[in-house]
């Protein structure tokens, strides 16, 4: 290869050629990531169609995204994909916190759901040329003999310990098989580390919102984060660029948990016992602090990943891990003050359909909000 030191440009050049994304399907539109990505894609005029599917209604206000309420049935999604000739599918549904749902439902969504969506995108007549899968660094697990920085080609050294980790591994195996079977489609897997940000609610943001942040006695785990905006930008990057393969999505910098707590201006509370941390989770839950299973080992050992491969495709992170933590700190201090003024959005099917399809709605007038909301 002739290009040296400018692989970003080289890839960007290559990206335009193989496949130009025009019509996108977002599965899991009502999840935080699905909604954020739809918002981001709406700003690109070259995207002709954005269709979102989910089993529940969208949680973000969207302008031109078409929402179709449908579960994970592959025949229905397959019909939508073919009817609308959607060339790109972005799967944002993966559940990576065990506290949002039961293990059974999570498995149903993560493994069976992924399988169904892959089935819908497969087949000889499928128009899908690009599949982007949002995965999680729970893929790697968290053990005492881990490398300090996981790279994408490393497999986990131990079999999965928790239900969520098992789901992530199984779902990715399905995606890998899909990539194998459909060489004409570009398949991108984004393994995101723990996300921080003002909007997203994760076990970590909950933990950092506590006045005293619990730590496991005698441990100071490695903590690497990524800002929510960077995750959305990474999804967008994968939609617009030619990025086959697996990529870690993680900001620069691996912090120690004590350092994180210091940056947030909080105090550590090293009270969790080093042995049997899982066993104490029950009583703690009653006190209002829930540790999801997959977080227990993270509180002990932590995890770091190598983020260079995505950067080599031309992607730039806006925030480092430290900056993401500082942003969260700002939000946590501001939140109690502005909480009242934050507006919420409820999806109203009839209103959304009227706004999109009624001949009386005036569209495209410059500088004017067409929806008058």
């Amino acid at each position: 290869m002739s290009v040296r030191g400018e692989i970003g440009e080289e890839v960007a050049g290559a990206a335009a050629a193989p496949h130009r994304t025009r019509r996108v399907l977002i599965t899991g539109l009502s999840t935080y990531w699905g909604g954020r990505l739809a918002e981001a894609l709406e700003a690109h005029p070259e995207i002709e169609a954005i269709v979102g599917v989910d089993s529940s209604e969208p949680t973000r206000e969207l302008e031109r995204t078409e929402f179709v309420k449908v579960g994970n049935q592959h025949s229905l999604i397959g019909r939508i994909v073919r009817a609308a000739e959607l060339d790109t599918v972005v799967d944002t549904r993966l559940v990576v916190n065990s506290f949002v749902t039961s293990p059974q439902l999570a498995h149903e969504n993560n493994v069976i759901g992924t399988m169904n969506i892959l089935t819908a995108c497969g087949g000889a007549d499928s128009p899908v040329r690009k599949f982007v899968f949002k995965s999680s660094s729970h893929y790697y697990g968290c053990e005492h003999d881990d490398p300090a920085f996981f790279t994408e080609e490393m497999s986990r050294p131990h079999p999965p310990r928790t239900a969520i980790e098992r789901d992530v591994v199984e779902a990715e195996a399905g995606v890998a098989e899909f990539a194998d079977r459909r060489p004409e489609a570009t398949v991108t897997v984004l393994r995101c580390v723990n996300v921080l940000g003002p909007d997203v609610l994760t076990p970590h943001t909950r933990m950092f919102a506590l006045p005293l942040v619990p730590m496991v006695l005698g441990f100071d785990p490695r903590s690497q984060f990524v800002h929510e905006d960077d995750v959305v930008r990474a999804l967008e990057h994968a939609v617009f660029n030619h990025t086959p393969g697996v990529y870690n999505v993680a900001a620069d910098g691996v912090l120690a948990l004590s350092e994180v707590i210091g940056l947030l201006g909080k105090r550590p509370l090293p009270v969790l016992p080093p042995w049997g941390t899982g066993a104490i989770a029950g009583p703690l839950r009653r006190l209002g602090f829930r540790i999801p299973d997959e977080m227990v080992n993270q509180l002990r050992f932590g995890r770091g990943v190598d983020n260079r491969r995505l950067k080599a495709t031309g992607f730039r992170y806006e925030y480092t891990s430290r900056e993401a933590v500082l942003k969260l700190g700002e939000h946590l201090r501001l939140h109690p003050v502005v909480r009242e003024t934050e507006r919420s959005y409820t999806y109203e099917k009839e209103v959304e359909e009227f706004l999109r399809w009624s001949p009386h709605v005036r569209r495209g007038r410059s500088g004017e909000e067409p929806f008058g909301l």
Partner: protein
Amino acid sequence: MDPERTPLDGTSDSIQATPHVGGDPAGGDHDADEVVGADQRLPAAPPERMRELLPALEPERRITDWGRSERVEAILDRTLVDFYYRYWFRCEVEGIENVPSEGGALLVSNHSGALPPDAAVIARAIREEHRDPRPLHITVEHFFKGFPGFAALIPKIGGVPAHPANVHRLLYDERQLVLVFPEGRKGTEKTYNQRYRLRRFGRGGFVEAAARAGAKLVPVCVVGAEEAMPTFAQVNFLKRLTGLLYFPITPTFPWLGPLGMLTYLPAKFRLRFLEPIDTTSIELEPAPDTAQVQTVAQDVRARIQENLDEMLAARRSVWFG
């Protein structure tokens, strides 16, 4: 680390030292209808480029991405390490110029003492005596990352779990100094009557790590550590009870409790850094040449043993040198 065998597995050669750039660019100039082909990979970025993409340490931070804390290290260095290095062990160093001033190098040393003082002394010697002082990363057993207390402290003072990927990143990508004790636990659990008899040098993994990173091997001999904390016996049932790696009986441990682990006898320390050994001649493709790796490992071991014997023969007194 087993490379994952999936078609998604992009640049499986990015971890290797060879500046090999994978196949034909999968991008190029085909259009949407053209089949990309089974090799759905982006070309691996060249190693210099990957090195540029390493995250820089933000100036505001006082802990590195490896968990090394400037503050904790400085406090320890000014107090405990300074006292032992200067006054208690009265360290004398020769051959410090054999430690390269730049680029990755793997220091290989003999290992002894129930809570080994040798690592701290070698790190201090490089800071103190070398004309371009550099931080030294000390590989430690994975065990410590799982043991409360050690887990929080060891990374802060420069310890890195001895994972081949960690060593490779430090040597190859970050071009740092790394210290290994190939004897590992076998070295520190040996009793006093076996002093200065080197154990087996692992399986030669350290040679392979250095070869992959294109780094030099610098053998180091430490005399004095065996007498500073002699182990008279190992108590197996107490080892199992405490979950420690081993449970030694030393002049001060367990009599003084955990403090006994940091109490050394005032033996005279001598350090000798030997001439670097080149590892670039070792064949790595398609698979590492195990015969060559073993030969180099044996050679390093023999040179350390020889020099130790020479230093012991010249030593008149354990306490005064």
